[in-house]
C-alpha cells in the first residue's frame, strides 16, 4: 500500500508518537479506575436508561394508549426516534467503510468510536419498531420465519417488512465490521493484562491473535471485504427507511426525493453525533493528540456539505409541491411552515440549514466549544426533521374531519430520554472496557519510522 502521508501535510497524529506510546496512551485509560467525570456521566446516562426501561415496561404492560397518539396521528415519537437513531448510525458506517475505501487516513482516530456509536444507535433504533406495535410480544411476526401457519409469510410488499431486513442486516454487518476491527487491539490489551479473569476474557475475544504477518494479511483482506459490504448499507438502510414514507399515499410522505434526502440527513446527523462524542471524549480521556483539530475540521466540512444537501431537499420538497399542482400536497407544506407545528418546522430549518452555515468560518471550526454546541443543535434539528415529516403530514391529511393535534405524554418523553440513556450508557461502558481508538490503525499512520524520502 502506497503511503500518502506527505511531509507537506500536517501530521495526522500530533505529538510525534511512537507505536509504544500509542499503546500506552490508549490502554492507560482502560487500565486505571474510572474517573469521577466518568461516574457522573454514567450515573446520568444510566438513570435515563432506567427511566426509559420503566416507561417502556409501563407502556408494554398498559398499551400504546399511554402515548399521545390518536386515530389520525398513528406514529409520532416512536418512529421519529427510530429514524433519528438509524440516521445517527450512518456516520459510523460512512467513516469506517466509505472513508476506508477512499483511503482517508484521518478516519483512523475516530472510526472505532464511530462504529461503536453506529452499533449503539442501531440498538436504540431497533427498540422502537418493536415497542411501537400494539402487541410487541408478537413483533417477531415481522420476520419471515418458517412456521406451521400455512405457512404464512409476511407481506413482502410492505416497507415495514423491508425495514426489518434492512435494520437487521445493518446491525449484523456493523457489529461484525466493528468486531473484526477490534481484534488486533483486543490482543494488545490481552498481552498487557495481568493473568486473571479479565485477561482470559480478552484472550477469548481476540481469537488467538498472534500478530503474525499472515494473520495481519488475512485481517486486512477481511477488513477490506467487510468495508465493501458495509458501503452499500450506508445508502440502502436509510433509503429503505425512507420508503416507509415514500410509498405511502399521505401527502408529505409520498415523495420520490425521500431516499437521497434521508441518506444525506442521516449522514448529517451522524457526523454531528460523532463530533459531539469525540469532542467530549477527547477532553475527558486526554486524546487531544489523536483527535486533532484536523479531524474536527474535516468532519465540520462534511457537516457543511450534508447540511447543504438537506437544505436543497427542503427547498425541493416545496418546489415539488408547488409544481405538482396537487393542492393536498401544497397544503401539507404550507401547513408545515405556517400551521400548528410551524415551531417544529422552523426549529428544524434553523438548526439544519442556518446554524451549520457558521461552519464556513475556519475560526468557528477551530473553536471546539462552538462546534460542540452546533452539533447538539444539528441533532435537535434532525430529530425535529423526522418529527415534522411524520406528525405534520399525518395530523392534517385528506379529510378535514380527521384533522387532529398531537401532544406527547410523559411516557413518550421518558422513552425518548431512555433511548439516549441506553446510547450513552453503552458508549460510556465501551470507553471503559475497549480501546476507543484503533491502535493498530493509528500506528499505521504515524510518521514514526517512515522515511520521508521514500515517498513516491
Amino acid at each position, binding site marked *: 500500500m502506497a503511503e500518502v502521508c506527505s511531509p507537506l501535510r500536517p501530521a495526522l497524529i500530533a505529538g510525534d508518537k511512537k507505536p509504544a506510546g500509542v499503546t500506552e496512551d490508549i490502554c492507560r485509560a482502560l487500565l486505571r479506575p474510572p474517573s469521577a467525570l466518568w461516574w457522573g456521566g454514567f450515573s446520568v446516562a444510566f438513570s435515563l436508561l432506567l427511566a426509559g426501561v420503566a416507561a417502556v415496561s*409501563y407502556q408494554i404492560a*398498559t*398499551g*400504546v*394508549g*399511554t402515548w*399521545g*397518539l*390518536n*386515530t*389520525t396521528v*398513528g*406514529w409520532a415519537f416512536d418512529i421519529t426516534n427510530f429514524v433519528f437513531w438509524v440516521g445517527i448510525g450512518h456516520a459510523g458506517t460512512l467513516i469506517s467503510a466509505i472513508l476506508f475505501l477512499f483511503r482517508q487516513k484521518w478516519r483512523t482516530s475516530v472510526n472505532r468510536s464511530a462504529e461503536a456509536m453506529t452499533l449503539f444507535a442501531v440498538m436504540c433504533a431497533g427498540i422502537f*419498531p418493536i415497542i*411501537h*406495535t*400494539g*402487541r*410487541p410480544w*408478537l*413483533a417477531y*411476526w*415481522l420476520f419471515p420465519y418458517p412456521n406451521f401457519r400455512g405457512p*404464512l*409469510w*409476511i*407481506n413482502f*410488499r*410492505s*416497507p*415495514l*417488512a423491508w425495514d*426489518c431486513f434492512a435494520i437487521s442486516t445493518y446491525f449484523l454487518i456493523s457489529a461484525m465490521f466493528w468486531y473484526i476491527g477490534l481484534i488486533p487491539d483486543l490482543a494488545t490489551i490481552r498481552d498487557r493484562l495481568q493473568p486473571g479473569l479479565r485477561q482470559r476474557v480478552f484472550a477469548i475475544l481476540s481469537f488467538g491473535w498472534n500478530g503474525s504477518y499472515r494473520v495481519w494479511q488475512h485481517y486486512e483482506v477481511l477488513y477490506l471485504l467487510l468495508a465493501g459490504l458495509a458501503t452499500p448499507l450506508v445508502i440502502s438502510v436509510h433509503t429503505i427507511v425512507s420508503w*416507509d414514507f415514500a*410509498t*405511502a*399515499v*399521505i401527502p408529505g410522505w409520498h415523495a420520490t426525493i425521500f431516499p437521497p434526502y434521508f441518506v444525506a440527513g442521516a449522514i448529517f446527523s451522524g457526523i454531528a453525533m460523532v463530533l459531539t462524542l469525540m469532542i467530549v471524549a477527547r477532553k475527558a480521556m486526554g486524546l487531544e493528540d489523536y483527535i486533532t483539530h484536523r479531524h474536527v475540521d474535516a468532519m465540520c466540512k462534511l457537516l457543511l456539505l450534508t447540511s447543504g444537501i438537506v437544505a436543497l431537499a427542503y427547498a425541493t420538497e416545496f418546489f415539488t409541491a408547488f409544481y405538482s*399542482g396537487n*393542492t*393536498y400536497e*401544497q*397544503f401539507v407544506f*404550507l*401547513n408545515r411552515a*405556517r*400551521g400548528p407545528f410551524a415551531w417544529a418546522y422552523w426549529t428544524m430549518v434553523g438548526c439544519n440549514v442556518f446554524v451549520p452555515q457558521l461552519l464556513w468560518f475556519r475560526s468557528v471550526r477551530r473553536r471546539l466549544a462552538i462546534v460542540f454546541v452546533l452539533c447538539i443543535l444539528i441533532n435537535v434539528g434532525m430529530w425535529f426533521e423526522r418529527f415534522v415529516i411524520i406528525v405534520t403530514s*399525518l395530523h392534517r*391529511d*385528506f*379529510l*378535514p*374531519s*380527521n*384533522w*387532529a*393535534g398531537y401532544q406527547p*405524554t*410523559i*411516557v413518550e418523553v421518558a422513552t425518548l430520554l431512555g433511548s439516549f440513556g441506553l446510547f450513552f450508557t453503552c458508549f460510556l461502558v465501551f470507553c471503559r472496557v475497549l480501546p476507543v481508538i484503533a491502535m493498530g490503525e493509528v500506528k499505521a499512520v504515524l510518521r514514526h519510522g517512515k522515511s520521508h524520502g521514500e515517498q513516491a
Partner: protein
Amino acid sequence: MEKHYWRSLAECENRGELAAAAEPEFAESPAREIEAGPSRRGFLKAAGFALAGGALAGCSRAPGEKAIPYAAQPEGLVAGRAQYYASTCGACTAGCGLLAKVRDGRPIKLEGNREQAISRGATCAAGQASILGLYDSYRLKQPLAGGKPATWEGVDRAVLEKMERIRAGGGAVRYLSETVTSPAKQAAIDRFLAQFRDARHVMYDAVSASAILDAHERTHGARVLPHYRFERADVIAAFDADFLGTWISPVEFARDYAARRMPPNMSWHVQFEGRLSLTGSKADRRIRTAPGEIAGRLAQLAAFIESNGAGGDDLAARLLQARGRSLVVCGVNDLDAQLWTNYINHLLGNYGATLDIERASLQRRGSDRDLADLLAELKQGQVAALFIDAVNPVADLPGVAGLDRIGLFVSFAGSVDETAERAHYICPDHHYLESWADAEPVAGLVSLTQPAIRPLGSTRAAIETLAAWSGHPAKAYDLIREYWKDRFDWDRALEAGFAEVPRTHAAAPRWIGRKPAPPAAATPGYAVDVYAAVGMPGGRHAYNPFLHELPDPITKTTWDNCALLSPAAAASLGVGDGDILRIEAGAAIEVPLLVQPGQHDQVVSVALGYGRKASERFANLGPRWINHKPTINANGRVGANAAPLLAFEHGLLRYQRGGAVVAKTGRRIELALTQTHHTLSVPKHLAPAGGEVRPIVREIAPAELGKPEHAETHEELWPDDHPYNGHRWGMAVDLNACNGCSACVIACQVENNTPVVGKDEVRRRREMHWIRIDRYYSGPPEDVRVAHQPMMCQQCDHAPCETVCPTLATVHSDEGLNQQIYNRCVGTRYCANNCPYKARRFNWFDYPREDRLANLLLNPDVTVRSRGVMEKCTFCVQRIQEAKIEARRNGAPVRDGEIHTACEQACPAGAIVFGDLNDPSSRVSRLAHDARQYRVLDELNVRPSVHYLKIVRDEKQQGEKHHG
C-alpha cells in the same frame, strides 16, 4: 486368585469399602434406582414428561368449560341461529316497531320492523342503544321499601294497607306518568284510580307538545296531536321543530321526509330556528329566528297567505302554490305560536291532507296545565298518594317540592333515579324487552311488545302491579289479550308485531278556530333555549354510555351538554370552546360553552337530560392509566341538568324564555369533540391556490341535476389482480337523504361489539366507532349550510392499507372486502396512517369489559378485539356470511336486498344501500351509476367501494328559478 483391577489408588488401598459401591455396576433393579433418588436418566425422563405435559397443557388457551345442551330442545331453536321477535320500541313514546334479534336466549340487537308504519324498518340512535338498558347492572332486581330490598308480597301488603287508609280518608291520589300510549295500560290506570274519590292521572312529556294539543282544543274542539304526513308535503315550513332529530316521532318523520327529498322532484323545506338543529341542517333555506320571534314570524306568514301572496314573500308564494300539499309545523311550546300554525295550515287546506287529525297521533298526550296543577298541589301538601310511572319529575322539571309531605309515594322506576330515591316504595317495572305490552302510537295502529327474554330480576310489569292493587291480580299478557279480545287476530298480530284496528273517531274534528290574536313582542336580551339532543332525547337515557359517547350530529360533542352560543355572541363575551358559562334565567346553571355556527346571536341553547344521577356510574369508565381523566365532571355527573332553566308560563312548560343572563365563570374544561375542523375549506393562511375548499362533499342545485360530471379516466398501470368473479360488495350513501341522525353509528356499535372508551379517550381523538358522520359547515358562520357525510371503511379495491401491513393482517377478499385479521395484527398502525379516509380504529388499550351483565349484549358472531389490534368497518361481514350460507343451503343465489348492513338497516332516511356491484340490477349498482354519484378522493385511484350521491339543495328564491 482373581485379578483385581483398581481404578484409583484409594480403591486399591481400601478395597473392601469401595468395592461394595463399585461392583454392582449394572445389577441394580429399576426399583432400587428410583429409591436411590434422581438419576440422570430418571431426571431426563421426568423432565421430558413434564415438558411434554406442560406443552400439552399450555396448548389449550382457555380453561375448559362445561357446555350443557338443552335437555329438551325448544321448538324451532337451532343453536347459533338468531331468532327475531316482533316488538315495539320503548325508548320513547313514538312506538316504532322492532324486531328483537335473540341469540341463544338473549336479545343482542334491535332492528326496525319493516312492516310497521312508524318504523318501516328503521330506528333512531336512542332506540338502537336502548337494548343496553336490558343489561344495565344498576337496574333494580327486586322492589324496595324505604330504600331496602323487599318482596313483592310485602310491598303489596304495605301499599294496599296504606291505600285503604287513604281511600277511607278521601285523600287525593295522583298518578303521574309520561304519555301512556298503551291502551291496556291506560285502562289499568283508570281502573286503579277508579277506586278513589279524588284521583287524577297526570301525564307529562319531558319534551312537551302540550301547546299543540291545547291549540287544537281551541281550533278543532279536540285535544289531539295531528299525525303529520311529511311524505305528502311539497313545501315544508318548520318553526323550531326538529322533526328529523327529536320531535315527536323522528324515525317516521325522517323516513317520510326523505321519501319526498329524492331528486328530481324534491320537496322544498325552510326552517326557522334559533339553534342549528338536525332538521335545520337539511333545510333548503334556514332562517335564524330567536324563539321570541317565532310567533311573530308565523303571524307575518299568515298575513302574506291571507293576502294571497301579496308582498312577494317567497315562502308564502311557495306555500300557496302547494295548498293541501304543504305543511307548517311548529315545535315551540307556546300557545300563540301553535294557534298561528294551525291557522296557517287551515288557510292552506292542509288539515286532512298533510295533517291527519282523524287518525291522530297519540305519541304525546301530556298536559302541562295538569302538571302545573299537580306541582302546586304537591307544594301545598295536598297529595295523599303519588304514583310515579316512567318519569323522573325531580330531574325533569323545575321547582318540584313537597314530595316529603306525601302519605304514600310509590315509584315504578326500573332503577333508583332522583325521584325514585325519595319514594317510599319502588316497584320496578320490566325493561320493555322483558314485557308484554301494547302501544297505539297513532290512532288505529296497535303495536305489540312481547318479551324477548325472561325478566333478569324479580321485576313486575307496572300494569300487573296496578292490577294487583286494583283488586284483580292478573298477568300482563292476560290483561292485554283481554283488552284487545276480538279486535284483531292476536297470533297474526303478534307475529307481525302490530295490527290495524278500525278507527275509533266517528269523524275528524272540524275547524272551529278564529284568527289568533297578534302575538306579544319578544323579550329583549338572551333567550335561553333548552332542547332535546339527538343523542340524549331525555334524561331516561342518561344511564346509556352508547348515547353519551355518540357525537352529537351537529356539535360533535360527547359526554357533555354545552351552552351553544353563536360565534358573534361568544366573541362579545370573550369566551371560547370549553369556557364554563353561568346561565341565569330564574335559576342558574353552569355549563361549558361550545361556539356553534348558525346559532342565533341572542339565543343560548342547552340540552336537557344531562347531569343525571344515572350518569354517576361513569366515574370509572374507560381505560385507567397515569394520565387518565375521569369521564364525569366536577359535579360527579355527565353534563349539567338544564331543568332549572325551564318554567311554567300560562300553564305551559316553556323551554325557551327571554331575559337570560350569560356570564363567564373563568373556569374551563376541555370538551370531548370528535371533530375539530368543521369545514371543507382549509384555513385561509394555509390555503394553496385552487385548494381552498376540498371536494369531499359535493353539493349541486336542482338545475344541475342530470348533468354527470366529466370524469377523468386513467389508464391502469397495474394488472387487475382482483377479478371479482362472484360477488363484489359495495355501498352507496345518498348524502342528500342522510340527515346525520346517527342511528347507524349506534347500530354499528351494537352489532360489532365496539367498545365505549370514555370522555378522556374521545378527547384524545380515540373514539372507536366504525362509522362516523362527518359534519361540514359551509358559508358564513351566521348562515351556515351543513353537510353530513357518513364515513366508514371504503373497502378500496387498491387499498393503501393492504400493501403496507407487514404481517398480512389486512388482505383483500375475492368479493372486494378489505378483511382485517385481528389475530394476525401486531398493531404497527401503518395501515391506519396510510388510510386516506382514516377509517381505521386502533385498540389503544384493553377496554374494560368488566360488567358481566352488559357483556351479554355482545354479538357472538363478531370477535371482541383485544388490545393492540387494528379494527374497522367490515361491511358487516358476519351478515354477508350468514346470508351466503343460507343461500347455499337453499341452493339459490343471494338476492339483492337480502343482506343489510347494520348501518343500512337502521337508517330512517334510506341513505345507505348495500349490495353487489357485480349485479347490474342491484340497487347499489344503479346508484353507483347515478348522475349524482361520486367517490371521495377518487383522484387517488384507491378505488373505494363506497359511492356517494351528491347533496341537492335549492337555495334560490323562487323568482330566481326562471333565470336558472
